[in-house]
């Protein structure tokens, strides 16, 4: 078969995470059999799972978080009582996108951000005396030890690093793109609180990854029963009004999770449900919670069905009656919602928008919807059908890479496997896509309008320049252009890189080129 570099660009960028630099030969491999290159990963369902030393299960993480919270509480009480004690752990530095940083992004801030935690200690009064240069003197960086990370910060960074390393090393990256797509579809936010931050990575590993090549209904159930989701959307606080717990306490129903299940996870706005359906589903899933630190209803930190909080009796949802059946009542309801025609339509639209075009071609959406319906939500069949479609290969490359995809594509091209997630986490904060921390339960946006915004482009350029300054001296920019795009690179891009004044500048321009930014 003739080599097709343009199709290789589609294979690597539209479907994957970009070509790797070094000697991987990704572009050549993709060019010789573009569809096969993308689909190869679909044949390895277990390859999607993420297991690495140091990654723990949700209950283990929950217990560690509870223990940490107890420790902080004790320290605070001891301090109140006047006893000398260790300072309570600091809030994690990368917990939230720092709005101050985003607004006033001096280039130097990026420098410091990229330097990671070692650079966080601020120089005193902006001056380091030349005395510091004395031979034998301790390196200045060692002068001020950084606050040790607490278990929640450490866990978040460990999970982030595992995900990033996988993204850097995987062949094409199509399955990792699917993971990110579904993880954003069923997002939680790590900013919800310590448990959400602790569980963000585990949620993706446990509820998303096992199902991205499985069935939508199974993913839906795994997601809605995951402690991270129950905590994020407050279902652990929701009590059936007529349940034992609801009658004992003055609290009642919380519709949050039920509403988002129908609006964001399955049927979509306008998908044919009413407020009465929301309330009904909320009642159906009362009692879906996780066991607390005392472990009264299960292993602390694990999913639990609290019958005491569950609304008794049958419920009518979308015209169908679900008999009182404890946990199974909600599971039956979710199974039906998962195969609802509105769900097929909503998922197909979002899927095509993510991979093909901001305005998804209606014919392709219709085909994806049919596949979803015919296969009863087989997500591997859905992914395969997308790769088999001609539209996905012929549509112009107008999608904008998200900040995460941009940073990963850059790291892959530069053949850097990170040993510390700091640069990525900080850059994602700056670029407005903090890892596992969207602003709302609708996840991060997925259109060029969101990511090709003026401020965002300027910040990307700053970060690309920073990478260029740091790594440029060691690379040959023209070699890298060959790895990234080969003869599918535009003459203008090639000329811009050839004519750059320095390798550093050439690398920054390459990373910012349409060949990298668009997919």
């Amino acid at each position, binding site marked *: 078969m003739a080599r097709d570099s343009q199709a290789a660009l589609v294979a690597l960028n539209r479907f994957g995470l970009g070509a790797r630099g070094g000697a991987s030969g990704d572009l050549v491999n993709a060019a010789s059999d573009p569809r096969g290159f993308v689909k190869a990963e679909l044949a390895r369902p277990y390859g999607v799972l993420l297991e690495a030393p140091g990654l723990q299960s949700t209950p283990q993480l929950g217990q560690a978080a509870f223990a940490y919270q107890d420790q902080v509480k004790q320290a605070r009480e001891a301090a109140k009582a006047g006893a000398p004690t260790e300072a309570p752990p600091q809030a994690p530095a990368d917990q939230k996108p720092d709005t101050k940083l985003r607004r006033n992004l001096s*280039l*130097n801030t*990026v*420098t*410091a951000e*990229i*330097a*990671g935690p*070692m*650079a966080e*200690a601020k*120089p005193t009064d*902006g*001056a*380091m*005396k*030349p005395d*510091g240069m*004395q*031979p*034998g003197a301790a*390196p*200045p*960086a060692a002068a001020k030890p950084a606050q040790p990370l607490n278990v929640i910060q450490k866990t978040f960074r460990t999970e982030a690093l595992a995900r990033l390393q996988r993204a850097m090393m995987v062949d094409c990256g199509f399955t990792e793109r699917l993971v990110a797509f579904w993880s954003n579809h069923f997002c939680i936010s790590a900013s919800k609180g310590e448990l959400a931050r602790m569980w963000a990575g585990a949620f993706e590993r446990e509820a998303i990854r096992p199902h991205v090549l499985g069935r939508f209904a199974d993913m839906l159930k795994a997601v809605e029963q995951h402690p991270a989701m129950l905590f994020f959307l407050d279902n652990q606080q929701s009590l059936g009004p007529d349940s034992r717990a609801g009658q004992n306490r003055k609290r009642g129903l919380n519709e949050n999770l039920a509403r988002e299940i129908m609006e964001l996870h399955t049927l979509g706005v306008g998908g044919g449900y009413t407020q009465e359906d929301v309330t009904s589903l909320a009642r159906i899933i009362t009692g879906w919670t996780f066991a607390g630190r005392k472990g009264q209803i299960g292993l602390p930190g694990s999913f639990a069905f609290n019958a005491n909080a569950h609304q008794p009796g049958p419920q009518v949802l979308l015209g169908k009656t679900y008999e009182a059946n404890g946990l199974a009542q909600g599971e039956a309801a979710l199974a039906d919602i998962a195969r609802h025609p509105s769900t097929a339509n909503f998922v197909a639209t979002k899927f095509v928008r993510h991979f093909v075009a901001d305005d998804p071609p209606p014919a392709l959406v219709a085909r994806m919807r049919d596949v979803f319906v015919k296969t009863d939500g087989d997500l591997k069949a859905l992914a395969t059908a997308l790769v088999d479609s001609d539209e996905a290969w012929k549509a112009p490359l107008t999608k904008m890479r998200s900040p995460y995809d941009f940073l990963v594509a850059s790291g892959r091209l530069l053949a850097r496997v990170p040993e*510390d997630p*700091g*640069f*990525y986490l900080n850059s994602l904060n700056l670029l407005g896509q903090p890892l596992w921390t969207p602003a709302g339960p609708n996840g991060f946006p997925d259109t060029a309008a969101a990511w*090709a*915004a*003026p401020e*965002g482009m*300027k*910040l990307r*350029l*700053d970060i690309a*320049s*920073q990478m*260029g*300054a*740091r*790594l*440029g*001296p*060691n690379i040959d920019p023209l070699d890298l252009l060959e790895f990234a795009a080969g003869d599918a690179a*535009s003459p*203008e*891009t090639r000329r*811009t890189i050839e*004519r750059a*004044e*320095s*390798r*550093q*500048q050439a690398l*920054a*321009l390459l990373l*910012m080129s*349409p060949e990298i*930014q668009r997919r």
Partner: protein
Amino acid sequence: MIDCVENRLLTSRRGLLLGGASFAAWAYLPKFARAADGRDPRLVVVILRGALDGLATVAPVGDPDYAGLHGSIALATDGAHPATRLDGFFALHPAMPEFARMYRDQHAAVIHAVATPYRDRSHFDGQDVLESGYAGPGRVQSGWLNRALEALPRGERVSSGLAVGPTTPLVLRGNAPTVGWAPVALPQADDDTAMRLVDLYRHRDPALAAALTQGLQLEKAASGDDMKPKPGNAVAQMRQVARGAAKLMAADDGPRIAALAFDGWDTHANEGGPVGRLAFLLGGLDGALAEFESGLGERWRDTAVVVATEFGRTARINGTDGTDHGTGTIALLAGGAVKGGRVISDWPGLKPANLYEGRDLKPTTDLRSVIKGVLQGQFGLSDQVLAQTVFPDSAAARPMKGLVA
């Protein structure tokens, strides 16, 4: 009063995700204070990335072909912004009054029609040759300044070579330990890079061009500036870098050798003549030299600064009032140790037949001879070490004598 800040990222490079070369920490290095005359020599190497237009910086106003070739951007010794006469033939760009003063005081010199052995027109390869010290391009991982450091006699008390900027320039990379320093405000995405990207986007991706342009404008608006290049900033940044480096080098046991790079000399379009873009950059370089002079204080007496670039630019201006990649250019020397007040040149002439490939100032002096002369004069390195270790296979390029007092 010290407005330079030790940059943490350089000393914590080991922990860096994107860290470049491994970075030796503090180390004892040769002491080369010369017992005989009590001198304590210092050397600063300034790389101008992008290929400086030597004919626009030190103009051969006495050459009858100069004004015609350099056209609208040619310097003249009369008019609103007259170039400073250096001798009966050459004149200095008016944006460099400090260098002119040093020249008058015989502490600055110009070497004209110089080039490295590189004869092609790629910045990347040209910079490799300039900094590696090898005769041709190749991905060598050490630079001539580092190998010179290694070759110095062992001593004590004196710390490593100083790499100024976010990365160690190739010229200073190698086995000999170096330390890094960068001013906190060192620019990253500079205007030149931004403009090149906007230009690419205009041709290939108008939507991104619009977004990026607006993003840049917003930033300028926020910093009270407009879309024009910011000469003040570039100039201020060069001065700031030099001031910080000078401060470090002035210490009794500070580094004796430093290397730094200034970007932005690739003047393809709208280069400007006595005023304009190149003039702004030269003003920054001039200010940086002045900062070295004042920052080094008494040490300036023993200091030589070498300013070099990867190649020159075409003798004839192009259709966009700029110049393209050329060959012969200048090297500048400044410092109390320099035997200055001279333009050293075996002038090839600018007649069409005398131009290199009919385009460029023909190089008549090997830049390696100039650098070797400075290294030998300052640190006493032997001909043999210079010809074999510092600049491999360069015996034919003899060290230029008498550059340093």
